[in-house]
């Protein structure tokens, strides 16, 4: 079967998100529902409840053990972010158990994804964004398409890696050349299937340059910079070949203070270490 057909078939067969995610979406979209309605949906799932509480109390959100109920998690972290954490838990289930035969190393991909989430949120914080919901998960989910490639066209992916090394092109270019589709487009198709909010879809589709339809988007711009930063910091090794150059238009639009990275690196490093323990299965 053609590679592209295998990929499209993989998207069709890609697991759906847990039912709890869609129930929460219904609650979110219903103007009459309250935070208690959402809390009720989550608390029916004991495993999700425990994991959401653990994540909400992590240093990523900065509440350090204050959150002892889902209602408080919704109050402090935000409803949308609590719902996002369900996506994150589902992602962890999608990473393959057997790590030895994959050309994209699942553990390294996960470490990189977590790091991008942490850096994205820290960058949003520096920019003074008041609603940071979506920042962490947008960063974590940006390489969703790679999970599909890992599971469906693993052997073909070796050709992608060789093509990158032999032709000095970007990973996206090599994927398009060898597989007929790159991981950002494939990831967006899964995001469509999952009915993810547009902010997350955009982070997946446009993280390579931080722009949507020619304009820099703040969240996507942060994911773009975080993706490059995580690779430079050595947090997870997913890069084959060169680390991409940041998009100058993103720097110009977001206008970060000049000492942004030296300021956040300590917190980013500590959050990263904590998260590697927190977000394991």
């Amino acid at each position, binding site marked *: 079967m053609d590679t592209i057909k295998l990929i499209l078939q993989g998207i069709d067969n890609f697991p759906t998100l847990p039912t709890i995610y869609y129930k929460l979406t219904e609650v979110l979209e219903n103007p009459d529902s309250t935070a208690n309605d959402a809390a009720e949906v989550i608390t029916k799932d004991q495993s999700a409840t425990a994991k959401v509480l653990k994540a909400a109390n992590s240093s990523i959100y900065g509440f350090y053990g204050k959150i002892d109920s889902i209602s408080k998690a919704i109050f402090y972290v935000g409803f949308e972010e609590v719902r996002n954490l369900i996506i994150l838990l589902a992602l962890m289930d999608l990473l393959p158990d057997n790590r030895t035969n994959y050309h994209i190393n699942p*553990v390294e991909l996960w470490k990189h994804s977590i790091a991008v989430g942490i850096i994205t949120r820290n960058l949003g914080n520096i920019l003074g964004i008041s609603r940071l919901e979506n920042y962490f998960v947008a960063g974590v989910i940006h390489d969703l398409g790679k999970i599909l490639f890992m599971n469906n066209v693993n052997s073909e992916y070796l050709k992608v890696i060789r093509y990158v090394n032999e032709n000095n092109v970007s990973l996206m270019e090599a994927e398009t050349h060898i597989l007929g589709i790159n991981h950002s487009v494939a990831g967006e198709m899964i995001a469509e299937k999952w009915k993810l909010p547009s902010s997350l879809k955009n982070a997946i589709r446009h993280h390579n340059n931080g722009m949507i339809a020619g304009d820099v988007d703040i969240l996507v711009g942060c994911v773009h910079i975080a993706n490059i930063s995580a690779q430079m910091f*050595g947090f997870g090794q997913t890069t084959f070949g060169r680390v991409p150059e940041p998009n100058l238009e993103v720097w110009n639009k977001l206008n970060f203070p*000049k000492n*942004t990275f030296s*300021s956040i690196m*300590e917190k980013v490093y500590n959050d990263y270490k904590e998260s590697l323990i927190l977000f394991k299965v």
Partner: protein
Amino acid sequence: MGILIPVNEVEEGMILDEPVVNRFGQVLLNKGTSLSLRHKKVFLTWNIKSVSIKSDDANRSLDLSPEQLEISEKRIKQRVYWVPRNLIEKDLYKSAIILNARIIFNEEPKIKINF
């Protein structure tokens, strides 16, 4: 060296590591100023999003030797072919050298992840 924090995280007694300037480049507060809640209100009025304050954490790179930083930089150059074009990219590059060195020599997170 200081760390940058969002204005809403400013606490009384924090010391400015860099002067605070408004969008016209005018200095509102000098380096070394001990911050109060009144200052926080001024920042919000001037739409200042973040300020640089003194922190012990910012000096962690001093634990690393020049040789260690050099090895780290060589490793980064194997993957990063572009040259920093502006101050923020220089800061990113410098931070990457420090963090890589810490991972290589000091504190590589030895965490086993089981999926």
